[in-house]
């Protein structure tokens, strides 16, 4: 699997979060999952999309550290490289 581009990861993460319910316009890098009403169950669903798409697993403590959309994008980029 080739390393994904920043754009590809951002697009996929935003798509996955939008699919959970939040308005797309509110899903920015700085937006916290709490402010988007994305809870731990939602976050697992998001990580499943990421795993399927980029082969990056985000489990347990790693997932708990993710507070914002940007955190998730950066984590995936770091792992995918």
């Amino acid at each position, binding site marked *: 699997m080739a390393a994904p581009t920043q754009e590809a990861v951002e697009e996929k993460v935003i798509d996955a979060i939008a699919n959970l*319910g939040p308005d797309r316009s509110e899903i920015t890098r700085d937006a916290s999952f709490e402010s988007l009403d994305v809870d731990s*169950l939602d976050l697992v*669903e998001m990580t*499943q999309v990421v795993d399927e798409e980029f082969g990056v*697993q985000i489990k347990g403590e790693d997932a708990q550290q993710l507070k914002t959309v940007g955190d998730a994008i950066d984590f995936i980029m770091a792992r995918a490289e």
Partner: protein
Amino acid sequence: MSRRVVITGLGAVSPLGVGARMLYDRWSGGEIGYEDGIARCADFEPEEYLTSKQARRNDRFAQLAIAACQEALAEAGWDDEPPYDPERIGCVIGTGIGGIGTLEHQHDVLRDKGPGQVSPLAVPLMMANAGTAALAMRYGLRGPTQTTVSACAAGTDGIGAALRMIRAGDADAVVAGGAESALTPLAMSAFAAMDATSTSGVSRPFDARRDGFIMGEGAGILVLEDAEAAEARGATILGEVLGYGASADAHHITAPEPAGRGAAKAIERALADADVGADDIDYVNAHGTSTPLNDSSETEALKAALGEERAKAIPTSSTKSAIGHLLGAAGGVEAVATVLALKEGKAPPTLGYEEPDEGLDLDYIPDGPRAIGNGGRVIALSNSFGFGGHNGVLCLATV
């Protein structure tokens, strides 16, 4: 004297449409809600009731419960906030199977994509109590909440449990009924494998040609309140739950006891609980599934419990002739239809009933709606019997 329990709101999503009135009016008008042997709630649009996030977090059976509940609470006048301490409001929503659509879909995911892709929402969506939980959360109901899972008696047993919660003083109001959505490949194949479902694709309860039930989905919900509290807040009273009776056949895992002894016991208990006699009953909303076994044993049960002559004299019809069998939702939806029949003084017919069967000789209301009652209080029984031999019977009345 125990507390009386009145009905202040009705809600239904059925194969005849969204709305309790739609169910009663269309059934009375002779409309059939199923097509090609399946009774779907084709008019139900989840997005009218749920955000996309809420829709994702509720199996279809719970979505149907939410829509029916919204209607019932609006009628009860609870739109903005409940009229009682939320800790004194309970919720009991029966279901036969719960979120089997979710279960089947997630099994596909497990098989095709592996365990890592199974949704974290699988359990909260498929659990049988998801409908009860969804309503408690949505409307802030913090009193006793539980789920009855007694197959096709679940909705009726839910309303019976709610009646007892209020009588016992555990709650001042309870949102109660049944919800089901099991029109999935697995569930439909499984019912067909038992020869429970109709091969002709026609629901005709009590008719000699009946050959099984039509599977359906839906939800029926009633708002029950302590009578004094409801009167004190000036609620419009739609009817009263006079009594409830339950029993088990302890006979066979699917077949009813042929003489209907268990069902008769439940009917007798409902009458005793309501403190009324067979002569007081103006209408019977039968379980009437259109299976060969149920409709004959139910006829026997009614004769045994009410006396043969009295049973033959009471107009008796089956909602399933119009909407098929909604399994765990049946008791909820049929209680809603029964309350409206009592209120209107007019019982809808058993649609499609033409050929009498030997021994099935009650008045099944074959020719269109029938006037019921004699100007005073109108009283009905609503029967539900489930696989496993569970029998539940409600005694409902006008006030």
